[in-house]
């Protein structure tokens, strides 16, 4: 039998371009424009996959992106939707979740034990005895999942961009095109999207041969494609609705993130299956699925068709099939033919048999549909005494619709069940959300056109700010298009409600009997609607079954909430381009050229040390020794740098920092400690005074932006007359440290460096190599040193001239690691390493920085007053015996005292100046106040003994940094 039809008026395939592909190793040919499913069906390959649980053969169902049983595996990705994804040349396809081939699936044997696998069976067993569960779990997990993953695939990332419009219309069918056109004519900037490659929607497959709509179709298609106010995107899916009409549109070339001011949902309806025994056999399809195959791909999925219907759409499908040369053996109408009007007459006129008030009791067939038992309905069951058997390889189910309203639910809309239409219809719509067409219950062509024009008018009024709310029900149809109970019971079951999850009618009934008797619990226990199609063809029937068993109406039973996405979205489209902001110092290139090894400090890249990574420890030691004995230079451009000016400048700094800043003399700096409301240390830095109303503040690299924001918050909320300027990125900073620093620096600067003119902790402005700079004498590394704050464009030149000037005394650049050791030798803390989320100043020996009595107010003051008396921990210095291994004790090793945790190592390093390992430990009270040695448990469990010692370890009097002693100058 040739499955390919003659050319159809609106077919999507290009008959002049053939595509060769393989399925399960066998060669097939189809046309460009064919989907995987239509390509296979055109070759007579009716079985497209196997079901998830029972591995029953499954074919095409909807051709509308819901065919969760027609998922294919390619070499590049799993779970490819055969019903909508286009064939590509030399595609290599296999079925998902099949043990063997779709024709012979070894796992199909499971059906013989199906009776032993009731709904939720896996909760009832395999857990006893406990030690066997891993064995069962391994077996169950191997059967779980559909497609398989190749962990060698590389990362693909699609492009992303933003877009803006006044009105988004979703769905370019009759209603969508009509409403978009009306809105565009009213000068709105409209975006119209449709998930299919061609516009027209049901016009082109449900009314393909209807002369009355031919002119309308042509004019609508032409106008929306050319209207200057309409941007038309086909093969584009609105995957979800998010706050303030933010809708990501998935296109073949990546994601468009659209911001609209209003949205018209013209997404139509989704056909629902009837439930009868073996309704999952390949050959049993939604009537609209068959119509899509015929009119889009010119494929007839069978030769002898039965139509099971309860609406006019079933009769139209019968005519379309007849037109395509498919023998319609009978139209089985579950209700009386009286209400079918002209469509029934046209079917009868073709000599097609129509059986009123009949139903399909059972479909029969080995692997594919071969026969069906039809019988008259008495009440809701079949009167088998008058049954009739029809040979058929195709059953077209046309028993009802569900609105494609997922995005309306996401936007907070509410739908309610309409007993006339026997279908959920919109009831409450949030601001800016509009609906029209079959989604809103308007079914005839005239109703849809009127509804579309009305909604466009309302949307235009809304966007112009006028109050307008139309009666949603105005153009709704007056006859039902869905059957209230399309379900035929059968003692032997296999009447499927959910094709994704292989759930039979009895599975839902049994779950309800076990107490899972509300829609959410029923879903979670039975997994109805949790498969890849997310309940698009199972939720409605599941709600009907639950409503009937609880004796409630459909509305009282409620429905599960619809969550994004409308269809699954590739992670490659979600991820998009990789944005990892990276910030570089103006000296980055120089560091790179001088063997710097970089580390990440927040978003910044900083040299960790200079030299070969194989000699890491030695390089760092040499850098430390250079600073201690001669001269070192480090790039500290990553520090936060903030100008604070205005009459209330001093007051602001008094509020924000613990120490008194208002008493700071001009030209001097002071250590600045910042705590939060609860007294926990969050940042530290230096405050320098330039004038009575001007200060210069530095902050740590990782907390710079936060500190600026905190200062700015005080200015705004305490109404302080202060101006702040964040100069972190505009200024570079270089720290020249070592006993030779003054000698090297002096000739290059206009600033007098003599001790009297420029004492320790002083700050002076002037010129350096001709550039305006500020010099600050800081003590972080504990040597005579000058922190040079200079313009961004001066950094490289000044750094290079300092290097040249320092050549004679053996100047050496040093990195963050060396700086850590130098500051540790001076006993200075690093916030976030020596402190944690609860550390306050009294725990790190900084009571000197908390002037409780002399300051009226500063952030955290009352908390610190409280904490002063209840200090539970204390940071203490320690050192290991001479010659102890250098990296045995690591940071965060615990201090143990008679097998109790009494503290933790916060910092530790080998100190060249002390010739031993030194460090800081945070010890719990009362242990901290004793003076007994500390025992640190290292990786292998041994306890290493350390001696406590006072801080700092190096140059306790601080002579070297204050350079009061002349010999330092020599």
């Amino acid at each position: 039998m040739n499955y390919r039809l003659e050319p159809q008026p609106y077919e999507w395939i290009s008959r002049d371009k053939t595509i060769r592909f393989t399925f399960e190793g066998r060669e097939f040919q189809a046309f460009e424009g064919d989907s995987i499913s239509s390509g296979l069906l055109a070759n007579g390959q009716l079985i497209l996959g196997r079901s998830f649980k029972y591995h029953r053969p499954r074919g095409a169902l909807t051709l509308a992106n819901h065919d969760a049983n027609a998922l294919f595996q390619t070499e590049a990705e799993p779970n490819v939707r055969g019903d909508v994804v286009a064939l590509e040349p030399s595609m290599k396809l296999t079925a998902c979740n099949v043990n063997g081939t779709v024709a012979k699936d070894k796992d199909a044997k499971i059906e013989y034990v199906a009776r032993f696998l009731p709904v939720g069976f896996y909760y009832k067993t395999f857990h006893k005895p406990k030690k066997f569960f891993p064995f069962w779990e391994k077996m169950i997990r191997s059967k779980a999942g559909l497609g398989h993953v190749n962990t060698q695939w590389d990362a693909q990332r699609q492009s992303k961009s933003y877009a803006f419009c006044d009105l988004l219309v979703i769905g370019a069918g009759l209603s969508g095109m009509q409403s978009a056109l009306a809105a565009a004519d009213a000068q709105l900037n409209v975006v119209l999207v449709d998930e299919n490659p061609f516009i027209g929607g049901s016009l082109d497959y449900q009314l393909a041969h209807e002369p009355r709509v031919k002119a309308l179709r042509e004019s609508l298609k032409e106008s929306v494609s050319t209207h200057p106010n309409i941007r038309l995107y086909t093969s584009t899916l609105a995957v979800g609705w998010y706050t303030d009409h933010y809708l990501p549109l998935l296109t073949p070339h990546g994601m468009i993130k659209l911001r609209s001011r209003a949205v018209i949902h013209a997404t139509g309806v989704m056909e629902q299956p009837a439930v009868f025994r073996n309704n999952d056999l390949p050959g049993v399809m939604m009537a609209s699925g068959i119509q899509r195959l015929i009119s889009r791909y010119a494929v007839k999925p069978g030769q002898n068709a039965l139509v099971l219907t309860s609406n006019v759409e079933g009769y139209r499908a019968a005519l379309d099939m007849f037109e395509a040369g498919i023998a319609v053996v009978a139209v089985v109408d579950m209700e009386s033919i009286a209400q079918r009007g002209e469509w029934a007459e046209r079917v009868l006129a073709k000599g097609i048999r129509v059986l009123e008030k009949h139903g399909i009791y059972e479909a029969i067939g080995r692997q594919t549909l071969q026969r069906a038992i039809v019988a008259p309905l008495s009440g809701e069951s079949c009167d088998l005494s008058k049954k009739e058997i029809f040979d058929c390889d195709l059953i077209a189910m046309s028993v009802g619709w569900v609105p494609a309203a997922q995005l309306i639910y996401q936007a907070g809309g509410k739908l309610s069940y309409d007993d006339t239409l026997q279908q959920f219809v919109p009831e409450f719509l949030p601001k800016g959300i509009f609906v029209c067409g079959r989604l809103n219950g308007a079914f005839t062509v005239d109703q849809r056109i009127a509804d579309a024009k009305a909604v466009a008018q309302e949307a235009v009024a809304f966007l112009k700010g006028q109050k307008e709310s139309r009666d949603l029900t105005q153009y709704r149809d007056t006859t039902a298009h869905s059957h209230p109970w399309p379900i035929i019971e059968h003692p032997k079951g296999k009447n499927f409600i959910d094709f994704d999850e292989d759930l039979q009618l009895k599975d839902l009934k049994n779950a309800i009997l076990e107490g899972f008797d509300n829609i959410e619990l029923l879903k979670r226990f039975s997994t109805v609607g949790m498969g890849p199609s997310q309940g698009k063809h199972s939720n409605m029937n599941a709600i009907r079954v639950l409503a009937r068993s609880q004796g409630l109406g459909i509305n009282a039973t409620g429905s599960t909430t619809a969550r994004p996405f409308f269809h699954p979205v590739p992670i490659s489209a979600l991820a998009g381009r990789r944005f990892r902001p990276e910030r570089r110092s103006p000296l980055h290139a120089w560091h790179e050229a001088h063997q710097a090894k970089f580390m990440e400090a927040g978003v910044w890249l900083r040299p960790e040390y200079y030299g070969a990574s194989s000699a890491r420890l030695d390089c760092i030691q040499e850098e430390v020794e250079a600073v201690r004995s001669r001269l070192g230079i480090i790039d500290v451009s990553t520090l936060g740098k903030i100008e604070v000016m205005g009459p209330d400048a001093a007051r602001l700094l008094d509020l924000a920092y613990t120490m008194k800043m208002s008493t700071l003399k001009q030209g001097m700096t002071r250590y600045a400690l910042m705590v939060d409301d609860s007294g926990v240390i969050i940042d530290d830095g230096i405050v320098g005074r330039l004038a009575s109303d001007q200060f210069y503040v530095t902050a740590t690299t990782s907390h710079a932006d936060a500190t600026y924001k905190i200062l700015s918050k005080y200015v705004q909320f305490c109404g302080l007359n202060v101006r702040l300027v964040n100069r972190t990125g505009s200024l570079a900073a270089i720290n020249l440290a070592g006993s030779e620093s003054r000698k090297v620096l002096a000739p290059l600067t206009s600033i007098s460096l003599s001790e009297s003119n420029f004492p320790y902790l002083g700050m002076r402005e002037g010129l350096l190599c001709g550039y305006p700079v500020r010099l600050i004498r800081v003590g972080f590394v504990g040597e005579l040193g000058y922190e040079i704050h200079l313009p961004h464009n001066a950094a490289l030149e000044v750094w290079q001239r300092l290097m040249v000037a320092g050549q004679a005394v053996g100047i050496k650049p040093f990195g963050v690691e060396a700086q850590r050791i130098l500051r540790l030798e001076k006993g200075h803390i690093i916030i976030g390493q020596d402190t944690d989320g609860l550390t306050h100043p009294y725990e790190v020996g900084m009571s000197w920085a908390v002037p409780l009595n002399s300051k009226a107010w500063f952030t955290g003051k009352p908390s610190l007053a409280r904490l002063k008396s209840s200090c539970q921990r204390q940071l203490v210095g320690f050192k290991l015996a001479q010659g102890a291994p250098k990296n045995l004790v690591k940071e965060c090793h615990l201090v143990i005292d008679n097998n109790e945790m009494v503290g933790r190592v916060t910092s530790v390093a080998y100190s060249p100046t002390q010739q031993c390992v030194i460090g800081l430990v945070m010890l719990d009270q009362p242990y901290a106040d004793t003076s007994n040695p500390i025992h640190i448990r290292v990786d292998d469990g041994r306890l290493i003994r350390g001696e406590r010692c006072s801080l700092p370890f190096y140059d306790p009097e601080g002579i070297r940094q204050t350079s009061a002693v002349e010999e330092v100058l020599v």
Partner: protein
Amino acid sequence: MPWQLLKYGFKRSHDEPRFFPEARPLKKQYDVVIIGGGGHGMACAYYLAKDHGITDVAVLEQGYIGGGNTGRNTTIVRSNYLTPEGVKFYDTSVKLFEDLADDFDLNIFYSTRGHFTLAHTDSALRTMRWRAEVNKHLGVASEVVDLQTLAEEVPYMDLTCAGHSPVLGALYHAPGAVARHDAVAWGYARGAYNRGVELHQKTRVLNIRTEKDEVCGVETDRGFISCRKVISMVAGSTPRITEMVGLSTPIEIYPLQACVTEPVKPFMDTIVVSGSLHVYVSQSSRGELVMGASVDPSVLHSTRSSFDFTEGLADKMLDLFPFVSRLNVMRQWAGMSDITPDFAPIMGTTPIKGFYLDAGWGTWGFKATPVSGKTMAWTLAQERNHELIEPFRLSRFADFDLVGEKGAASVGH
């Protein structure tokens, strides 16, 4: 062995016993009212009956059983916390979890998988070692593992992270596990129901009546119940309940989002969390990758989803698992996390006599379900805090005695 299934297969009718009772009217009076029918609420009812013989108990659930955060979390169970009080508490929970399937005679798919917390910076690596040392000291299996071990255990992970903040090491916690979250709630609910506890769904608490700072009854949308003991186990709805008794707490509600991919054949047998990338992932028994990140940036009492959540998550996932770019995200949802300043729960007695709190569960509530049920049942029975939960008392904030779980401020899952 699946004897029950064999037995079931040959029976005519489906006479499996009900998990939960049919809806029944409320009694006028109960000894104990538990507000919240999630995992914690059902566990507390279960242990009240099982451990203490207290069965005149009503569990009131405004929606459906397990419909709150119980059904929306990462399903991860672990005890590699930072503070001794946290480690002891969660280790007890892991031990209880391991026997739940037997206690319930219900398979909760408790699957011990091992749990990796990745460190991408030196400071993160230090925190991992801190947690490992505290865990080892308290007998919990956690250790810092190097890149080589990671490459062996999780071969499909790109440790270079596409060349940006590569992985430096990880905290490996062997007992880390996942469990089917719904089954835990259903198991406890059935166990409580079978022991005479009343479960009332679709019953919303409107107010709590107190006299002279003592609880005397609960007003619901189905009538008033008088009782002397009320416990709030409502996680994301806690502030609404504490407001009824005039109690203020540090709790703020932030949405916590998650998503799943379409199901694929299982390839990932372990749990991977990255602190600095704020990403976690494990593969469910159905084959879906369950992924999530940290809470949303601002307070909101809603389970709405946001698109930038999935965008950020997808972007970060590709650093660790490039091949995941070929998978599709099927569904995203959100829970309402009740976050506390020190990332530790708030449990036990309160200044209002007879009113007990089980709250502040942030992103760490599911893993505490068994131990919170057990200790809160004990606390209700003894009318004083169980020793395991004393560090999590509400008054710790007034005493400035917070739990140090925040550590160096890296949020774990």
